[in-house]
Structure formats: structure tokens, C-alpha cells
């Protein structure tokens, strides 16, 4: 009986470890997105300041391609929207992860106390 609880406990602990790794990679991606967001915001600001006579180019591979400044603005705007949506998505994933981790923690505590009781009972028998 006790060994079964132990087995279960080990499984939950493994799950927690996995959640932790998942959390770390989530945080990393979230940070990357944040950097992209602020970079794109700055580009948007600059594109808003572009004057009539200025020419906008986009680097595509090794070549600079002329681009309509309004088109560039909408493109960056779209990219900003996309990044913001991604950030929201990752935030939700992080919340889910945290909730799962909390649940696992509870389970560990419950299993541990169960295991203690089991052992106590066993030692009394002996």
C-alpha cells in the first residue's frame, strides 16, 4: 500500500519538474516577445515620422527593396498586433502552468501526509 503511494508521489513530482521546465521556456519566449514588441514599437514611431520625400526600404535577404511607406506602416502595425496577441496567449499559458503547479503541490502534500499515516500504522503493527 505504502509503495503504491510512493509511486504516485514520484509521478506527481516528475510532473512538477516537467511543469517547471515548461515554465522556464514560457518565460524565455515571453521575454523574447517583449523585446520584439518594443523594437517594433520603435520602428512604428520612426515610420510615423517619415516625411513625403523620404524613401522606405525593407531588407529582404541581402537586398534592400523599396517599399511604400504606408504599406510599411500597416505591416509593422499588423506585426505589433500579432506580437501583442502572442504575449496574451503566452500569459494565459503561464497562468495555466502556475495553476497546474499549485495543484500538483497540493497533491504532493496530501500524498505525503497519507504516506506518513500509512507508515505510522505499519510501525504500530510491528
Amino acid at each position, binding site marked *: 500500500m505504502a509503495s503504491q503511494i510512493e509511486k504516485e508521489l514520484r509521478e506527481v513530482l516528475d510532473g512538477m519538474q516537467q511543469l517547471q521546465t515548461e515554465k522556464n521556456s514560457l518565460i524565455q519566449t515571453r521575454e523574447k516577445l517583449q523585446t520584439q514588441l518594443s*523594437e*517594433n514599437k*520603435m*520602428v512604428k514611431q*520612426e*515610420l510615423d515620422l*517619415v*516625411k513625403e*520625400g*523620404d*524613401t*522606405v*526600404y*525593407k*531588407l*529582404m535577404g541581402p537586398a*534592400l527593396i523599396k517599399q511604400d511607406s504606408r504599406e*510599411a506602416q500597416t505591416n*509593422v502595425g499588423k*506585426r505589433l498586433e500579432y506580437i501583442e496577441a502572442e504575449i496574451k496567449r503566452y500569459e494565459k499559458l503561464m497562468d495555466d502552468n502556475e495553476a497546474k503547479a499549485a495543484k500538483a503541490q497540493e497533491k504532493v502534500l496530501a500524498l505525503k501526509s497519507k504516506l506518513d499515516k500509512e507508515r505510522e500504522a505499519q510501525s504500530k503493527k510491528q
Partner: protein
Amino acid sequence: MADKQQQGGEGQQQQEGIDIMRVPMQQLESVRQSLSQEVQTLTTAIKSLKHAQTKFSNSLESIKQVTPESAGKKSLVPLTESLYVYAELTDPSKILVDIGTGYYVEKSKEDAEAYFQRKVKFLTEQLQGVQVVASEKQREQAAVAEAYRIRMAQQQQQQQSGADSASSS
């Protein structure tokens, strides 16, 4: 209930809400570690901000060198790190500026100068903000380190006196 009130009172007295002379040593140690990590991160941030600022002000200086008289002058342009070709400056009034994420804008010289000035100013503001936080954290770090040192000394003293009384009895 009375206990809670006392704790609340203590929290108000101490800015951080915890008395660093009373928290468990283990906790103090972890606070010490996380503070030193934070200070390190902030120092790296300051370094890279300064680096970026230097790059922008160098660019600003470089375009100031370009004058209407520069037109037609020959210069060596790097194609790779070790390969240069002669080139002639045809239009010194236009400058191509990299504004990030693969976008380049051909601006007038004045606008390009304004761009770099704007960037330098922005970075200066960011730097000031980070520096304020960094010095705050450094102060906290020093306070925690000092408390840690005192607590360690106290602990050692206690152990010593404990050993003394044990040997004398």
C-alpha cells in the same frame, strides 16, 4: 489577533515589511543571492545601454562629417571586412538610416541627425531610469550583506559561549 496587529505595526516601521535582523538565516541568504543577481542583471543592462548610446552618437558624428562639399569625393567602402572598393558620394544630402527590424529610411541629412539625437536622448533617459533602480538595489544589497555579516558573527559568538560554558561545567 493581537499577534497580527503587532506584525502589521512592524511592517509599517520597516520599509520592506520584513526585519532583516529577524528573518531566518536561510531566507536572508536567499534574499542576498537574488539581490546580487538583480544587481548583476542591472549592471549588464547599463553596460549594453551605454554601448548602444555610443554607437548612436558615433553615427551622429559620422554624418556631421558629410557636408555638401563631400559630393564627388572618392572614398573606400568596405564590401567585406577585408575588401574595400572606391566609391564616389553622389548625393550628400540623403542618408539611409537603419530604423530596426529590417526597415531602412532614406532621410535628409538634417532628419538623420535628428533621428540619432532622438535615439541618444531616449537612451539617456532609459539609462537614468535604470541607474536609479540599480543604485537602489545596491543600497539594499549592502544593507542585507551587512546584516548577514552581523548575524553570522552573533551566531559564532553564541556557539563559542555555548562551547565555553560546556567545557567549564
